[in-house]
């Protein structure tokens, strides 16, 4: 294209990179701040220190928050993945007007603003005695995350040929066997994506946690919220780095897993051809 070297185009390109810098660079500020040798929020000048990380990992409170967040994220993403996947397969098989209405209802937790979800959970959790408990947090996060699994698995299913399932059934496999050996392997990328996204959603969820967790349950984002409001202790910077590192690791696992599955898929195709 001749336009690629024109002045106007380079102008646009420059502004784009400036926009991307605005998106990414400010969020990196927690990294140097967490390495400051001083007791207050500041940039390290000259020397760096790991004291705030030592602080974070030797504090019983911060460690319990990290542990609680991990437990809640693992169990809620597990529940969301199982229920979301089963539901996606169920909707895909019946596919009708009714199923579209059901799908709409199932997507509500994703559409309704988090503050309203938080109010709803708070009211009913008080009645059920689930306030400030592991099960309360896990169920709430599972409900919020299940629609994401539903979406990613449905997207995988859209590329899956319904006749393969019918063939498997016609050849005598039970529905259970067909699901396990024919359907599930081919929608693996969608299940992985849903599981990882559900994990991240729970791992850094704050609004619902503010309402339904108080004393016994103090997730990592919840403790960071308090720390950010005081905004003096660089330990919060260290915890922010840890929070983001876990998110990035989860996304890396996702990239590796889906790549792996895709490679397996293409290998199978080559063998078949």
């Amino acid at each position, binding site marked *: 294209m001749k336009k690629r070297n024109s002045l106007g185009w380079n102008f646009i390109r420059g502004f784009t990179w400036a926009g991307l810098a605005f998106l990414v660079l400010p969020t990196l500020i*927690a990294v140097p701040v967490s390495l400051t040798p001083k007791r207050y929020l500041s940039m390290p000048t000259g020397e760096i220190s790991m004291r705030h990380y030592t602080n974070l990992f030797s504090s019983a409170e911060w460690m319990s928050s990290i542990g609680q967040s991990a437990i809640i994220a693992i169990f809620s993403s597990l529940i969301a993945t199982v229920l979301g996947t089963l539901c996606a397969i169920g909707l895909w098989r019946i*596919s009708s007007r009714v199923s579209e209405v059901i799908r709409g209802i199932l997507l509500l937790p994703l559409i309704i603003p988090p503050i309203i979800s938080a109010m709803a959970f708070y009211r009913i959790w008080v009645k059920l005695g689930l306030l400030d408990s592991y099960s309360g947090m896990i169920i709430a996060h599972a409900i919020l995350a299940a629609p994401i699994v539903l979406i990613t698995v449905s997207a995988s299913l859209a590329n899956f040929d319904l006749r393969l399932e019918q063939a498997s059934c016609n050849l005598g496999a039970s529905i259970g066997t067909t699901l396990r050996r024919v359907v599930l392997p081919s929608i693996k990328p969608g299940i992985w994506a849903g599981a990882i996204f559900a994990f991240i959603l729970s791992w850094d969820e704050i609004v619902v946690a503010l309402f339904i967790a108080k004393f016994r349950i103090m997730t990592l984002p919840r403790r960071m919220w308090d720390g950010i409001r005081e905004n003096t202790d660089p330990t919060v910077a260290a915890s922010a780095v840890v929070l983001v590192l876990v998110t990035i690791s989860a996304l890396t696992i996702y990239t590796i897993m889906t790549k792996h599955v895709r490679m397996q898929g293409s290998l199978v195709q080559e063998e078949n051809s």
Partner: protein
Amino acid sequence: MLVVPLFGLIIVLYALPVINILWLGVSEPELGIQNYKLLFTKSSLVKILWTTIRVCLITTLCSVVIGYLIAYSMVHLVGREQNWMLTLVLISFWISVLVRAFSWLTLLGRNGLLNAALVSSGLSEEPINMIRNEFGVLIGMIHYMVPYAVLPLLANMQGIDHRIMDASRSLGAGSLQTFLKIYLPLTKPGVIASSLLVFIISLGFYVTPALLGGGRVLMVAEYVSVQILITVQWGLAAMLATLLLSGVFALLYIMSRFMKIGEIFGARP
């Protein structure tokens, strides 16, 4: 059968509790529309609604302009540069809202890094207030929303046949004219979709206004949380939640007329 577990869970522990909240708006403290009447008698409520709408409109405008720029460059580039841009947008998409708020507070606060730099370099005599006001909230919200603006625009722009633009240019139109008369109208569905998406998400925003506004930029979500956790006025909070939810659904309905929402959410076409 496979649908039942999740459907049951969401109906019983989510949909019904949400409906219960809407019901509280007309039943708490007593049956009637007294909470809705407050909208006409309590001027602070109108101010909060107005602040919310104003902040959301400015956020939407800025996010979509920046998002358009990024999406435009991305579809016109190839190879490594395009991949890098997409990676950066996705990283930004996934960064926790708390970490963002922390970063902006650290950068823009009164004792923050930017003010320290401004004062020590002599560019400013005293620290400038960049947070605990609407400016801070807007920066934080635009920063969060740009990736959401980019994605629908990108999908729209990737579907445009670029030979149309070549045709326009070969027929003698200048670059600017081609952009304004051909490209911009073709991307209108993308612009509408991304504006509505950003506006809808902004409406319910809680964390960023609460942390960067420092209590001075009160938007609906934060006010609702104060009504519940501090002053315990469920009726008023539920009424505002109902307004918020009606706004979200009305906008979703408009959005559904411009695009097939079902397809975004993975329904079979």
